[in-house]
């Protein structure tokens, strides 16, 4: 009851404040209260965009710095430093005109040279950027990363201070999306040189050109503050005066804080989400990440398609997402996540879905299982199930284990939940039977997923191989790259092949349940790449 009343009141106030803001007259009356208290579940490891690898770093970089574009709602491109973009007819050359009123927090102007410097620094093997692979496609990037060419040969040139020219090796249909990802942001050479090894290790060892400036971050503490950047070119549209971030690793703690009003947002554990499923403040952040079973096809039992299909058919995914996870995660339709890309109003996930690949049919499963065992000439099978040691991963393994053991006679599942990096290492070395892992898109394009399972991809730990699949993916990057429909069809076909053969068994598309106070408006969340953009956020009241 109470919640309802407040919620209504909230909307009214929100509407009126939107009105006021729209008029562009008064924002000072709300300015004093424009402080957001945000929960983080992990520390901020670095502010060096070349070496960042984690969500928190990228999110923070996205709000304190700015590249050519910003990613707005639904991954729409919004203006950043680039005021004008020209693409050559063959799509291999981009010319950006930069705004002249963007400034670093050390007083220097943001120029095209900063981009050149930043990109070269990232692809330089010496920097050992773990995200440099995203540069693949930009002229000479791959060769530079492999140490075959000099850094200066990278396909980026500054023509004067405010004109930037980028040349590509191959067409990148998603190139503009990439520009919203912090790895492609500019870096101030003076700052990098001046701070040396301390660059990006504390808020004072970093310069900013985005809507906010990072403060109170010592490099290892559990709280920091984003303060409105008074030098930001679009500062009049930035409404928040500060965002206080607080790391709480226990969702129990963060929920307690949220309830007591110390936080305006908290992420929820699956159990909390289940209990709060009726709350008006519950916001489910749908991720662009899919979790799936990956079979180790260097082992003969998993080379058997019947075994793989039987295992897939036995899992009741609906029950899993609703009853076990209960955090808004949905049954995966395929590999690429829903909402990632659309063509003519059709979502890629729908277009490329294979119903039987994610269905439950236990009778069929038992038949296939028996058949598979016969083909293998065994009566029982020990299955090593590997996954992370997060709560969700533990729930997943427990559920999958129970589904397999209950329904497939002769199956004996042993589970190991290990830390993320250990899991990665074991995946890479092939020390697993089935691994439950997930992949999140770096940018909003199916290729971000489908690339994983080409036979030569280093991340194809299960070593699933399909020549036609490889060909289709290759075609989408080369011959069909320019033709949107053809490229689309290639990718749809490829995913169907993958699913029909159960190269992987998709489980669910991840969502994160969060609680957000209803007074918080205008939070932009994107599933792929960087998640949060607070530029337009404000507190209604």
């Amino acid at each position, binding site marked *: 009851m109470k919640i309802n009343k407040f919620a209504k009141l909230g909307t009214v106030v929100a509407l009126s404040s939107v009105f006021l803001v729209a008029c562009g007259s008064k924002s000072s009356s709300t300015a004093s209260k424009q402080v957001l208290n945000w929960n983080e579940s992990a520390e901020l490891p670095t502010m060096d965009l070349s070496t960042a690898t984690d969500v928190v770093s990228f999110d923070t970089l996205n709000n304190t710095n700015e590249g050519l574009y910003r990613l707005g709602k639904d991954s729409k491109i919004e203006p950043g430093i680039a005021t004008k973009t020209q693409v050559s007819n063959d799509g291999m050359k981009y010319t950006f005109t930069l705004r002249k009123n963007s400034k670093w927090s050390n007083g220097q102007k943001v120029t095209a040279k900063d981009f050149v410097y930043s990109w070269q620094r990232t692809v330089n093997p010496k920097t050992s950027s773990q995200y440099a692979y995203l540069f693949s496609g930009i002229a000479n990037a791959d060769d530079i990363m492999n140490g075959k060419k000099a850094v200066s040969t990278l396909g980026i040139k500054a023509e004067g201070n405010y004109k930037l020219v980028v040349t590509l090796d191959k067409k990148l249909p998603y190139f503009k999306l990439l520009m919203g990802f912090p790895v492609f942001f500019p870096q101030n050479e003076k700052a990098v040189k001046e701070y040396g090894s301390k660059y990006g290790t504390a808020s004072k060892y970093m310069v900013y050109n985005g809507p906010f400036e990072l403060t109170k971050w010592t490099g290892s503490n559990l709280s920091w503050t984003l303060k409105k950047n008074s030098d930001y070119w679009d500062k009049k549209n930035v409404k928040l005066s500060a965002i206080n971030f607080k790391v709480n690793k226990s969702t129990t703690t963060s929920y307690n804080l949220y309830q007591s009003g110390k936080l305006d947002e908290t992420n929820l554990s699956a159990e909390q989400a289940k209990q709060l499923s009726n709350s008006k403040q519950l916001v489910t952040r749908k991720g662009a990440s899919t979790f799936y079973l990956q079979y180790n096809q260097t082992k003969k039992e998993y080379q058997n398609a019947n075994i793989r299909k039987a295992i897939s058919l036995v899992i009741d995914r609906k*029950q899993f997402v609703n009853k076990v996870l209960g955090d808004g995660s949905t049954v995966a339709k395929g590999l690429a996540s829903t909402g990632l890309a659309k063509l003519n109003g059709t979502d890629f996930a729908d277009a490329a879905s294979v119903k039987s690949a994610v269905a439950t049919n236990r009778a069929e499963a038992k038949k296939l299982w028996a058949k598979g065992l016969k083909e293998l000439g065994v009566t029982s099978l020990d299955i090593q199930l590997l996954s992370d040691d997060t709560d969700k991963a533990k729930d997943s393994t427990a*559920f999958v284990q129970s589904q397999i053991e209950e329904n497939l006679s002769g199956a004996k599942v042993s589970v190991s939940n290990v830390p993320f990096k250990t899991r990665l290492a074991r995946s890479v070395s092939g020390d697993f039977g089935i691994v439950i892992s997930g992949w999140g898109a770096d940018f909003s394009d199916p290729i971000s997923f489908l690339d994983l399972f080409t036979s030569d991809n280093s991340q194809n730990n299960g070593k699933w191989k399909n020549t036609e699949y490889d060909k289709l993916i290759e075609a989408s990057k080369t011959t069909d790259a320019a033709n949107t429909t053809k490229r689309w069809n290639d990718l749809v076909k490829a995913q169907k092949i993958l699913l029909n053969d159960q190269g992987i068994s998709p489980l669910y598309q991840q969502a994160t349940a969060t609680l957000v106070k209803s007074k918080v408006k205008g939070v932009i969340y994107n599933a792929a790449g960087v998640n949060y953009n607070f530029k337009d956020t404000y507190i209604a009241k």
Partner: protein
Amino acid sequence: MEEKIKLNPDSFEALPKAEELDNEKIAAPSLTFVQDAWRRLKMNKGAFISLWIIVLMLIVAFGSSFFIDHDSLVKSAPNYANLPAKIPGVPINGFNGKLKVAGEWVDEYKQNNISSDKYFVLGTDYLGRSLAERIIYGTKVSLIVALVATFFDLTIGVAYGIISGWKGGRVDNVMQRIIEIISSVPSLVIVVLMLLVLKPGMTSIIAAIAISSWTTMARMIRAETLQLKSQEYVLAARSLGESAPKIAWKHLVPNLSSIIIIQTMYTIPTAIFFEAFLSFIGIGISAPETSLGVLLNDGQKNFQFLPYQMWYPAIVLCVLMIAFNLLGDGLRDAFDPKTRR
């Protein structure tokens, strides 16, 4: 002096010898050391009750092996997920299938359309598995971890202590340095490091706890052995040419037994705590096996909504720890000759 007492003429006859001897018997029953300890333990109500609680828990936990096996652990029934306790014929809120949701008692069984003849005595967990079953199984696992780890602690610690104390001199010096080094790293850190290297699981936890926790036992045994070594009966045995292992077994171990028993009683709750702690920080027992620590960890995540999921395992864990601690105290008092009256 006036005599108010009647004196018989034969009163002053000398006493026959037999009667004399009769008077020499000692009125209080003579008790052996163990009997005396047992009597004293029985006098200590807390310790005695604890003993029975532990026995009961052992019986329930290990007796359950016939009913609760791997299959019932693995089996999930998400339809029944997160139901509160419902005991037939108990109309008390909290035990009748009702749960306090936003300040009001709601019948979760009804809400989830569960047939009215379905009962979960302690409710269910997030996968719809009976919490009672899991707690019993978890208790068993916790006890196994504790008992096996304690067994190693005991054998390593006692043997090490006796050897170190018996040999003395340089051997003792070196052995004590080794103990010093081991105990200069917090044992929990050792356990954590061991678990990182070993594959997670019960065996690793037992091994890790066993490796790190025997030093206290070894120290105490050594100190006592040093004292016993110079006792006459040990010297006598030595001078009669008995072999060292024989002396250790026949003379030292029996005399060390009270220390060993008491120390064991304290090691067990420590091991239980270690296991719970490891599971709590997420490197303990892995699914589908469960333990009190795992249940506690699962429960605390949801404490605001389903407090019973933490309370029940917490109560069982605390009762277990209290029982072992009280029994340990009781045994210490019972065996300690200083408090013998």
